[in-house]
């Protein structure tokens, strides 16, 4: 459990920050990779060592950070939707429907729109939609895993480079 703690802590932090609009407008796509880098630093500090980080460890810690960020972020997003009874989907749907009508979209598109309107209605009535929650969970799992892994690689390169410079100075 101790070896997963840095990923859990940084994943939680990244999940929270991803939900806050002001922070998100500041940092865009850098939250998850930065969380992965911090996770690597914390992992080394918790073991009390300063050694070269292996690629496999960096990628796995980055991946775990991304996964935890996705889980915590989705949980928080669901909580926010439960309280506000509103979602980003509701804002974008009318425009999509207008586009679909203008382009005489096929029947399957209209059925997809019905599903999406059902999601928006469920959120407005009950504060929760299983399909919407599932969508954000799957998408954030995939994307945060990729960005977390890349962040792990980035962190590995930066920390190993600093270690080499420090060893060179000695």
């Amino acid at each position, binding site marked *: 459990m101790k070896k997963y703690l840095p990923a859990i802590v940084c994943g939680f932090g990244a999940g929270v920050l991803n939900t806050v609009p002001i922070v998100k407008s500041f940092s865009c796509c850098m939250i998850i990779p930065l969380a992965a880098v911090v996770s690597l630093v914390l992992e080394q500090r918790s073991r009390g060592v300063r050694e070269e980080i292996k690629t496999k460890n960096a990628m796995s810690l980055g991946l775990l950070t991304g996964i935890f960020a996705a889980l915590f972020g989705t949980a928080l997003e669901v909580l926010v939707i439960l309280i506000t009874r509103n979602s980003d989907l509701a804002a974008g749907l009318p425009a*999509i429907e207008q586009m679909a009508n203008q382009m005489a979209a096929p029947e399957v598109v209209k059925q997809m729109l019905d599903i999406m309107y059902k999601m928006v209605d469920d959120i407005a009535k009950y504060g929760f939609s299983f399909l919407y929650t599932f969508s954000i969970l799957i998408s954030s799992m995939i994307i945060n895993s990729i960005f977390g892994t890349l962040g792990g690689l980035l962190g590995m390169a930066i920390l190993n480079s600093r270690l080499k410079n420090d060893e060179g100075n000695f």
Partner: protein
Amino acid sequence: MRFWHFKSALFLLLLLWNLGIFSEFLISRISGLNSLLPFLSIGYSNVCHQSAWKTIGSGAFHTLVCSRCSGIYAGALVLSLLAVFMRGRFFLTNTRLLALMMLPLLADVIFYNSGLYNYSKTAAFLTGFLSGSGVFLYILGAFFTMFNKSENKG
């Protein structure tokens, strides 16, 4: 050859990612794509705030991420294409140079948020492009080291 194949795969993935960003513009050409739009938008919301007035586009169609993010991913895409054709060490290992390439982006974010000037999509895109290029080359360097080590072991 292995590293070349990897670089090509990276380019294709980045191309798909960038095409997704411009999904709204592609709707008119590929039927049925607009049903995927809300799900694509949900996906890209994980990496961007998606504020409508900061996205690239006019009228009905906009990018699914802001100008800055569009620049970051466009920079990574262009450099990934160059990396496919370039032989030798086409990557970055100098952390200071990476920090230097990200400095304009950081400065733009700070100056805009402190009210020094109004948000400029062009400035956001260009600073993002420079940062994205730098980060891509740095990560490519990390992958190259990984490939080198595994080839030395094998």
